[in-house]
C-alpha cells in the first residue's frame, strides 16, 4: 500500500493506495501518530484507491480515530472504494465513521470544529441535577458532541462549580422519543450576560446513547448542508 500525505494549515489529508492489510497497519498507525505529534488532529483519509481492507486495518483506523478525538480532532473517511465500503458496512463501521464523498466536504466538516451548534427551534432543554442536592436546574443545549455539551443556564445554582458531578436528562426530539439520561462533569462555567454557559463532559454514557448522539450530530450537519443548497 502507498500512503500519500498532504499537510494543510489546519488538517492533513492521507491518501491510501492499494491493499490495506495486517502488513501495513503498523506503518499506517505510525503515520497517523506523526501527524498528531506535529499538532494536527483533523485527518481526512481518502480511500478511493484502496482495493482491499481487512479487520486488522479497520481496527487500526478505529484506534487512529480515537487518537484524533482525544486531541479534539476527528478522522473522516472520504471516497471509500466498494471494497472499503462493503467491509465497513458489514461491521457496522459506516455508522461509526462518517463517510464523505469528497475531501473538500470532509475538510469543511472538520473546520467547523467538533460538535453541533443547536440553533433556534432545534434547541433542546436539559435538566441538570446534582447527587445529594435537591435542586434541579434547567438549561438549553447550545452545542452538542459525542462526549461533551455546552448549555446555557438562566438561573444558576451555587452548587454548580467546575469539577462537580451532575446528572443530565434531555431529549433530542429530532432523533428519538426516549430521553437521554447520563452522568457528566462540569468543566467550565462562563458568564454570558445574565446567563451562564456550562461546558459539560460526559463521564458515564451508554454505548447506545453515545451512538445515537453521534448519529444525530452527523445527520444534522449533513441535513443543514443540504438545506443551505449544498
Amino acid at each position: 500500500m502507498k500512503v500519500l500525505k498532504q499537510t494543510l494549515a489546519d488538517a492533513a489529508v492521507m491518501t491510501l493506495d492499494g491493499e490495506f492489510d495486517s502488513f501495513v497497519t503498523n506503518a499506517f498507525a505510525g503515520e497517523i501518530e506523526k501527524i498528531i505529534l506535529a499538532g494536527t488532529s483533523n485527518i481526512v483519509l481518502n480511500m478511493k484507491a484502496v482495493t482491499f481492507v481487512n479487520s486488522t486495518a479497520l481496527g487500526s483506523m478505529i484506534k487512529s480515530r480515537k487518537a484524533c478525538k482525544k486531541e479534539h480532532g476527528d478522522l473522516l473517511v472520504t471516497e471509500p472504494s466498494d471494497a472499503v465500503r462493503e467491509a465497513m458496512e458489514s461491521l457496522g463501521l459506516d455508522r461509526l465513521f462518517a463517510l464523505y464523498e469528497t475531501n473538500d466536504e470532509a475538510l469543511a466538516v472538520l473546520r467547523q470544529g467538533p460538535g453541533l451548534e443547536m440553533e433556534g427551534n432545534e434547541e433542546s432543554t436539559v435538566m441538570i441535577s446534582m447527587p445529594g442536592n435537591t435542586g434541579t436546574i434547567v438549561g438549553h443545549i447550545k452545542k452538542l458532541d459525542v462526549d461533551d455539551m455546552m448549555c446555557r443556564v438562566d438561573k444558576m445554582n451555587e452548587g454548580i462549580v467546575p469539577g462537580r458531578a451532575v446528572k443530565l436528562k434531555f431529549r433530542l426530539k429530532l432523533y428519538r422519543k426516549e430521553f437521554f439520561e447520563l452522568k457528566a462533569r462540569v468543566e467550565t462555567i462562563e458568564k454570558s450576560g445574565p446567563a451562564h454557559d456550562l461546558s459539560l463532559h460526559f463521564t458515564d454514557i451508554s454505548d447506545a446513547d453515545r451512538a445515537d448522539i453521534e448519529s444525530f450530530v452527523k445527520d444534522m450537519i449533513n441535513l443543514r448542508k443540504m438545506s443551505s443548497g449544498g
Partner: protein
Amino acid sequence: MAARECLCSAVTLQHLVTPPQGESLVKVQKEKQASGAVVLTLKGEFDTAVVPAFNEIIDGLLAAGDSRVVLNMLRVKFLNSTAIGSLIRAHKACGAAGGSLAVSQPSEAVREPIELIKLDAILSIHDGDNEALEAVG
C-alpha cells in the same frame, strides 16, 4: 380527474417490511398506478432502524425502472433526522433516474421536523395523492 381514474385502475401489490430488530416499526404498502407511478404508503415510526430497509425499497424500485414515486406519509407517527436524510437521498436518486419523488399527506409528525430543518423547500410536498401523482407525472 385523470389522476383519480388512475387510482381506480390501480394494480395493488402488498409489500410489507419489517426492520431487522424484529419489531414492525414501519409498514410499507406498494401500489402501482396505471400511469406507471408508484405510491408507497408508510405506516408507523420512521427512524434510523428503518432507514436501510427503506433505502432498499427505493433502490429496488429504481432498479425495476420505477423512478416516479409518491410517498404517502399520513400514518407516519415519527420521523427522525436519519429518516429525513433518506427521504432526501430518495428524492435525489429518483431525480437522477429521470423521475421524481413527491411526499403526500404528511402527518404533523412528518411535516414539523422537515420544516424545522428547512428541507420543505427541497422535497416536493402535497396535501393529497392526486396532487402528488400529478407532480411526479
